[in-house]
């Protein structure tokens, strides 16, 4: 099973390395979308500092959802998805590998871009650290849930919007805990509760989502 996992993961990374501009799009979207907010709500520093955790998380969510829509599309089109599912190993390896690839290609770059965002919004050191820690725990959750949505909406015309509609409610707990952690730290309180809950969410999602995604892949390709 590990072989299939690694094979799928490395293949995705190699394919992405050939289309580097495409791979950077989610990060660019992330930054552009975030920049809209000061333009929309005004440049007053304290307010921006207040809303920063929430809007960073929301933009990370949207960037993730927008890029996960095409997670299986390429493989479906060129027939490799069928091959992957025909393998003797369980499809859960495919699901996990695709989720991991998505995180490495979207989630991780978002985390790397976040200090820049911290600068734009005037976040203090501890707040930024809390934001990064939260995203480190939360972006894998987004990738795992996004993969499930992508598998369910595979090949559908209305795919993109539909995926966002069905996955977004499931990601709300992560949003609440992740943004809440930063708010707490800014208020001088401890965020350990938030991080524990995020960690528990990540664990639960990591255990359950690939299984559901594998089932969804079978449903969508039969």
């Amino acid at each position, binding site marked *: 099973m590990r072989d299939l996992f690694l094979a799928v993961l490395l293949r995705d990374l190699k394919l992405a390395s050939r289309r580097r501009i495409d791979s950077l799009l989610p990060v660019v979207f992330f930054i552009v979308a975030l920049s809209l907010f000061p333009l929309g709500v005004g440049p007053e520093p304290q307010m921006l500092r207040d809303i920063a955790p929430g809007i960073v998380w929301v933009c990370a969510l949207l960037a993730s959802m927008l890029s996960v829509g095409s997670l299986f599309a390429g493989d479906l089109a060129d027939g490799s998805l069928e091959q992957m599912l025909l393998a003797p190993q369980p499809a859960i390896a495919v699901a996990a590998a695709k989720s991991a690839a998505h995180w490495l290609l979207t989630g991780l770059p978002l985390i790397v871009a976040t200090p820049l965002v911290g600068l734009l919004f005037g976040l203090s050191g501890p707040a930024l650290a809390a934001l990064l820690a939260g995203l480190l725990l939360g972006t894998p959750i987004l990738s795992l849930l996004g993969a*499930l949505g992508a598998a*369910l*909406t595979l090949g*559908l*015309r*209305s795919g993109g919007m*539909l995926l966002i*509609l*069905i996955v*977004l*409610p*499931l990601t*709300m*707990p992560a949003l*609440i*805990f992740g943004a*809440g952690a930063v*708010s*707490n730290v800014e208020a001088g309180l401890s965020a350990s509760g938030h991080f524990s*809950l995020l960690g528990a*969410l990540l664990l639960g999602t990591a255990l*359950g989502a690939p299984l*559901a995604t594998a*089932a*969804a892949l079978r*449903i*969508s390709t*039969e």
Partner: protein
Amino acid sequence: MNSPPLRLYTFAAPSRFYRLAGRAVPWFWAAAIALALAGLYIGFFVAPTDATQGEAYRIIFIHVPAAWMSMLLYLVMAFWAGVGWAFKARLASMVARAIAPTGAMFTFLALWTGAVWGKPTWGAWWVWDARLTSELILLFLYLGYIALVNAIDDVRRADQAGALLALVGSVNVPIIYFSVKWWNTLHQGATISMTAAPKMASTMLTAMLLMTLAFWAYAFAVVFTRTRAIVVEREAHSGWVAELVGGRMHP
């Protein structure tokens, strides 16, 4: 000739369901109306005025039953969708699909009455308290399910995908509720709980219970009727439907 022994799953035949449900629906309507009249009578003419909220609290006789129904129907829908998926039981999948719009309706009604109750009581058309926010997210879950099953043309794929989504949603409902409650207690601004309000006189509880049962009966009536429509749509080419609509099958 002896009729074949009655087994539980013969009720699972769509044709059988169509006939039985058709006979049951009028009784459900009758029950719904009777229970509603009883509940509303007690709610308006027996239950006393609330000390803090005045007469505005009487919205509770719709708000709370609608909220309960919205949550219950989601779980029931997920259950039957799961049964349909696991046992390839066509009728179960049809029932699940039939439940969704009614569940969404009750969710919307709970939200609407929650807002209308909030305005005179707390001064705002909307408060982001834990219960209302969870209800809003539940509405999104319903809409997601409906959108997904409607977007997939292949009926079997749609049923199965919907079942998976509904089951995943069910697992998430307690998580979402917990996280929203957590979020709500942090942001001390709007922590007014919509249902904490009146100290419930037993007459108020009775009225609420009766209204809940009335909504239950209503849900049965509407969901069964919708299921019958779905059954006809899906089984249109089968012999029993042909007989039903008065034509005869092509040879």
